[in-house]
């Protein structure tokens, strides 16, 4: 059996174990039953000559260890955004604040450096109402844009595709380190690299394995993430949505003009497909205007991340900072006005009340729907 499959199986088991442990609580009795069931199940299958025995065994071991991990973890429930290199980000955020006006500086720090504290409540509400809040945080999308920028830089400098990919990966790692590697940026970095890798490998659907392994590694370090961190849940769900439903939505919106608009709507709808029940459960409202608002807001990320990257790289030379920050100011000002405009409609966001019902009803239905689409061949990529 291939080692990657063992790893993925183990990761799946571990995540299931952590989930079970966080939902039902930990008990040594249950742990003992789990390990016994795993071992005996594996032995039973093996003795029958079935090749699946080993898989069952690995799954059970993962389950047991995940269960054990969450049962013996004593970290804080909601770990603050600790950074292991706080000073780097601190210096950069202060620098931005010294050059840009208050609102735009706060937004820049949130988008590029992952420092959200200064963003005013009003602006946050507007972004929430328009379903564009994901751009305010440092997310997989921001980072994958950084990665793509570095990669195209590498390509135009004459590197091979593979070499530029590694250059981009190294660049992302450096970027994450430079902004102080808070957990959110770390997660975004991993997600960004996975998305980039998957896009270069062709079939997007295969990317679920690295996504699972990434989730596994993060949960190993902090098992409370899986059940307690909304940001973690949303970013993984969004990536899974993009992996599994991007092609479907691309078919649905194939008639739209302009490749950029098509791409943005497709991405936004694919991410929304998997994310909305969890948003409803946690926040009780859904943004109706989100697909339209995203068309206007998401393209802003590319120049902002480009200017942000330039700012971060040239930050030791202070006199160069305004060259990157002032153009960013104009873009951010326009963004704030746009989001204010979209958020000003009364119907921009529908208040439905918090409900977890949809989580239980929708995801199984979504799975069946995906199977149906798969049979119809609607999940295949459109011919280019």
């Amino acid at each position: 059996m291939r080692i990657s499959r063992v790893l993925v199986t183990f990761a799946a088991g571990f995540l299931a174990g952590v989930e079970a442990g966080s939902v039902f609580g930990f008990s040594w009795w249950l742990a003992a039953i789990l390990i016994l069931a795993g071992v005996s199940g594996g032995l039973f299958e093996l003795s029958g000559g079935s090749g699946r025995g080993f898989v069952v065994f690995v799954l059970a071991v993962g389950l047991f260890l995940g269960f054990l991990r969450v049962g013996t973890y004593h970290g804080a429930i909601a770990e603050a955004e600790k950074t292991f290199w706080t000073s780097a980000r601190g210096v950069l955020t202060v620098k931005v604040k010294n050059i840009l006006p208050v609102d735009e500086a706060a937004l820049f720090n949130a988008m590029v450096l992952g420092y959200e504290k200064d963003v005013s409540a009003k602006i946050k509400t507007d972004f929430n109402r328009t379903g564009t809040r994901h751009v305010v945080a440092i997310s997989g999308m921001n980072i994958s844009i950084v990665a793509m920028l570095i990669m195209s830089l590498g390509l135009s400098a004459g590197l091979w595709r593979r070499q530029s990919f590694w250059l981009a990966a190294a660049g992302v790692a450096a970027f994450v380190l430079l902004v102080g590697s808070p957990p959110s940026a770390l997660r975004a970095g991993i997600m960004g690299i996975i998305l980039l890798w998957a896009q270069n490998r062709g079939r997007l659907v295969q990317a679920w394995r690295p996504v699972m392994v990434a989730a596994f590694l993060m949960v190993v370090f902090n098992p409370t993430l899986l059940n307690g961190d909304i940001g973690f849940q949303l970013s993984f769900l969004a990536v899974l949505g993009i992996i599994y439903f991007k092609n479907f939505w691309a078919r649905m919106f194939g008639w739209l003009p302009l490749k950029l608009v098509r791409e943005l709507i497709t991405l936004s709808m694919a991410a929304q497909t998997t994310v909305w029940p969890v948003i409803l459960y946690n926040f009780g409202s859904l943004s109706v205007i989100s697909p339209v608002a995203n068309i206007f807001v998401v393209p802003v990320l590319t120049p902002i991340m480009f200017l942000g990257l330039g700012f971060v790289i040239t930050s030791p030379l202070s006199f160069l900072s305004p060259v990157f920050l002032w153009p960013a100011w104009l873009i951010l000002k326009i963004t704030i006005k746009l989001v204010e405009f979209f958020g000003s409609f009364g119907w921009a966001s529908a208040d439905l009340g918090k409900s977890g019902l949809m989580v239980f009803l929708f995801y199984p239905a979504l799975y069946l729907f995906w199977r149906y689409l798969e049979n119809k061949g609607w999940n295949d990529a459109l011919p280019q």
Partner: protein
Amino acid sequence: MLYLNKKIIIGVLLFLVILIFWFVLEKEKQEARVIFLDVGQGDSQLVLLPGDVQILIDAGPGANVSAKLGQYLPFYDKDIELAVLTHPHADHLRGFISIFKNYRVKNFMFSGANYDSRVYADFMAALEAEGSNIYLARAGDLVSFVRHSMSDKNVQHPMLHILAPAENHLGVNFKSIHDSMVVSQLELADKKFLLMGDAEEDLENQLITSNAIGDVDVLKVGHHGSKTSTSAKLLQAARPEEAIIQVGNNSYGHPYPAVLNRMAEFGVKIFRNDQLGDVIYR
């Protein structure tokens, strides 16, 4: 994505043109303005002068003053040339802590009186860290604005006259901190503004007897229109045409109806921040 085709180059150029135009516009359209900022229940006045010069008198009760300044200052300017604190009550003071975080305050003026409060202690620490030049306000002090002129020598315009305190208040304790008030008169845009801070009747009388108060155009009503300020005597001496009441939602009963009536008797037109938002003179 970074393959520089014509469309991208044109887009970037267009964007840069807009940015440069904006910059030039911000530089060129500058004019002297006095803005009474709507910061809720508290005081804050912003004076804008051509040449990227700003004076901030009091900063209101909270961090929203920083965003307010962001609206009025040019995007490239993060310097405040002079900040004045009239007295250390939180509704005039607390905003400065956020101002220090978001702006560089070059010069700072206050009375220096002692006042025992947590906010004031935090503020003093922040002021020290900011490294501004510090001036102690004394009656007779003059802040003038030097205008660079191509034809003549640089022209000096005296514009902010400090009327109170009369003595040095550094380290002095006060029974009522309102007696340590920095009161000033601003001359700008062909108008005279009398900025009373939170001055109460005692201080008003002192100023009147020492002949410090002359005819003005606009009165910044003392203590948010409280009944202990803005006596008939003061209105007689200052004869304002218009009055600004810096007031927000509050449980103190500001502004006091009797004060409003008194001003109406003198034919003073009243502008209130809680009804109008920011009040701007240009």
